[in-house]
């Protein structure tokens, strides 16, 4: 009973927040001279809907005219994948956000407010890119293969397994090392992690910008970019392999990355809530004195958490390059995936399941807001709506209080004494 009430409360709060965010932003929508309901329906349809999605109801059930018969058929919208589904795109964009949010959560859960995800991510991305094209080329050179397409059979499968693995490992190690610096500075010199990670981010972003524009620049394209990774390093999207027959995935580059993100989510949950190391780091968070008093090696827990956090951000960079971008382009470094991850981790209250939900919502709303401009709706409106929704979501405590008060009005106090123990 108590648990059920908790679950209802946990779900009703974000719903109320989203609705209030929409209500508040309708002021700006009206100001822009467009209909709020239409705008919001479009926002959600573009972010999460299937083909033919026009209204909020279409997010659940959509009526599509059959081309052959001319009859309208009702489909269950979330699984109706004809000509691709917006949700696939949302998940594709959510993948790196989820990984950086996990990264932030691991750091937060040792009491380190590290926001170094962006720096770790871009360094990981660069390492993954370089391994992704340079290593296969070296292999072809050694093996004397002139046309990569000549490689077939077992050698191809071996390369398809080992090259992405190596690229990902390289990225994770790089991210972990970069994050370790902030942890080390904190422990040895008591440098505030917020400051050190901001500075480290700036260094990494500028350094990667330099790499892309000079040593790694592949061609004379207007915007600096690296070589494209070899096909053997590519984490091919579901729409091109594995599930190429399923329309739902078409048009998106959703792929192995989301599977990696889910596996990482499970691993991180087990790590935080079921292992000794996770226990050590959670006790260190916000109760450092308690941890030290109990004999927990708090400094070791901090370093370990920072290493894991960095590795996850590096992984996010690698997944984004190997699965989506396939080359690193100038501007990738400042795309803010890491910072959005921090935001998602905070909104999800460091809950792993919450990160997946919030991350997907966040990515979908972002896509929806960008696509709004294809109607008559100003592009800026989308970002404002998202910002207002986030603002209302962060008012969680206020809503919780509110719900408690309403509940109390309907269920008056019964005979509850302060010492409500079982032995009474």
């Amino acid at each position: 009973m108590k648990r059920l009430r908790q679950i209802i409360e946990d779900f009703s709060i974000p719903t109320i927040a989203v609705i209030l965010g929409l209500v508040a932003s309708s002021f700006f929508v009206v100001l822009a001279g467009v209909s709020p309901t239409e705008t919001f329906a479009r926002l959600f349809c573009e972010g999460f809907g299937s083909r033919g999605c026009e209204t909020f109801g279409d997010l659940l059930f959509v009526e599509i005219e059959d081309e052959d018969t001319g009859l309208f058929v009702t489909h269950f919208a979330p699984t109706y994948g004809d000509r691709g589904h917006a949700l696939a795109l949302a998940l594709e964009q959510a993948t790196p956000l989820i990984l950086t949010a996990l990264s932030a959560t691991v750091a937060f859960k040792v009491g380190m407010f590290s926001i170094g995800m962006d720096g770790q991510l871009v360094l990981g991305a660069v390492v993954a890119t370089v391994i992704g094209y340079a290593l296969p080329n070296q292999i072809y050179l050694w093996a004397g293969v002139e046309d990569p397409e000549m490689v077939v059979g077992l050698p191809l499968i071996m390369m398809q397994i080992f090259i992405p693995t190596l690229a990902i490992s390289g990225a994770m190690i790089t991210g972990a090392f970069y994050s370790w610096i902030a942890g080390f500075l904190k422990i040895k010199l008591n440098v505030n992690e917020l400051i050190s990670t901001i500075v480290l981010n700036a260094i990494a972003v500028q350094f990667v910008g330099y790499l892309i524009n000079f040593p790694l620049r592949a061609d004379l394209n207007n915007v600096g970019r690296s070589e494209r990774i070899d096909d053997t390093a590519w984490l091919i999207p579901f729409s091109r392999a594995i599930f190429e027959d399923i329309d739902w995935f078409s048009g998106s580059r959703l792929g192995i990355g989301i599977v990696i993100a889910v596996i990482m989510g499970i691993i991180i949950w087990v790590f935080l809530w079921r292992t000794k190391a996770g226990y050590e780091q959670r006790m260190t968070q916000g109760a450092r004195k308690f941890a030290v008093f109990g004999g927990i090696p708090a400094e070791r827990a901090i370093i370990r958490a920072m290493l894991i956090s960095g590795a996850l951000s590096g992984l996010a960079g690698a997944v984004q390059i190997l699965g989506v971008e396939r080359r690193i382009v100038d501007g990738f470094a400042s795309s803010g995936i890491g910072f959005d991850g921090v935001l998602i981790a905070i909104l999800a209250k460091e809950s792993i399941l919450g990160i997946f939900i919030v991350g997907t919502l966040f990515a979908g709303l972002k896509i929806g807001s960008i696509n709004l401009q294809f109607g008559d709706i100003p592009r800026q409106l989308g970002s404002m709506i998202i910002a207002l929704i986030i603002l209302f979501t962060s008012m969680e405590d206020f809503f919780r209080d509110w719900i408690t008060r309403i509940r109390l009005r309907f269920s008056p106090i019964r005979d509850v004494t302060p010492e409500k123990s079982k032995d009474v």
Partner: protein
Amino acid sequence: MASALEMRGITKFFASSSVLASNNVDFSVQAGTVHALVGENGAGKTTLMNILYGLISPDSGDILIDGQTVKITHPDDAIRNKIGMVHQHFKLVPSFTIAENIMLGIEPSQMGFINRTQEADAVRKLSEEFGLPVDPTLRVQDLSVGMQQRVEILKSLQRDARILILDEPTAVLTPQEVRELYVIIRRLADEGRSVILITHKLIEVIEIADHLTVMRRGQVVGTDDVKNVTVKEIANLMVGREVILTVDRKPATPGQVVLKVEKLLVADNNGLPAITGVDLEVREGEILGLAGVSGNGQTELIEAIAGTRQIDSGHVYLFDTDITTSTVKTRRNKSMAHIPEDRMTTGLNLRTNIDENIVVTMYDHDEYHNGNLLRYGKIRDLARTLIQKFNIKSAQVGEGISTLSGGNLQKIVVARELEGNPKFIIANQPTRGVDVGSIEFIHQTLIDTRDAGTAVLLVSVELDEILALSDRVAVIYEGQIMGILEGDDLNKETLGLLMAGANIDDIVGATL
């Protein structure tokens, strides 16, 4: 004549913890008296006063000041009605001066600029008027706890409080500071103000209060003139059963030396010497009390022994093993246990559940983990066993502990530290801020472990506690042991002299 304050039918239910903290409470205070509000931790005393001060809004009930019904929904309303409150944990700005703190929100200003001279003068005048000398220019962070309390009282008086609420005012004070506080309280009452004293120290009630109201489980269970009741009656009323105020103990049978401290030098947080050459021995089956006015190096000495503070020179031995540089974990694995001074931040992690709090000292013992995975089932069994064994009321396995009362929280700490039958226990202020029932229980537990052969080092600023439990007493003064008393030499007078810095040879020699 109408009462200075009357609260009628106050009811408050906390939905988050399902606690009825105040159940139809009637409470009234006469002008010019000191009224003690007593009860165990969690009895609802602080809730009632927070309602009066506008920090909590009651579900129902009326508040009357001088016979007039008033509406208090915010501390501003309370201040307007001349109610002042000094919280147990002071609400002062440490980086501000005394004057800035007292005048906070009512600063004398010209065109938006604060007039510092006028501010300091006003505070100086106020402190002279009430005979509470303070230097308005000192920063609060540099003040002793007693001084900070004085600033809080002055702050209320500046706002002309006619009803002054003091929440556990003596919990953090040294015996001398307590004396001074009593004088202040009495003077305020004589001026016609009403002082409400929230406390669970019964001696205090008898010494200073005129009337008392006893609360238990959110209800008033009695109210009377102090002169009509005895300490024992109050205690029984508070706890709801017969309370044994003295501890029954057999003479100690000390065995071999368990803990040995040699020529210890330890620095405080500012790097200044706090412990300057301490030698100590604690033996099997005895309780060694460490008496002293707080702030004489007890904290540093205990932290050095427990392993949470670096030792500058000297040695600590546990069963002949040198543990001077050992980690906390090593010391704990060598059978050392530690009931810390501050249960809220050191002894417990209020952000997590009872299971994880209990296992913190044992999580890497083989029975509680399987490789890297913790065995949460076993941990829960342990928590369940300890909750039953120590009768920790309201505690549920797997549930949070932040809503438990101080006494129950302390029981969790004691239960955890005694688990695994340690050979050496540090008990630092084991009953500070704990209700009578729990004090009784914790004292008996410490005696029982002593009888089972454990060496106990007891630190307390309560002399009565030291005398009731200790077999030998070491007195610490300014980082040094002034002497160790036992047998006939062990009495309050001698202890008091040593605590004030007298030389042991002068006093003990003289009495022989």
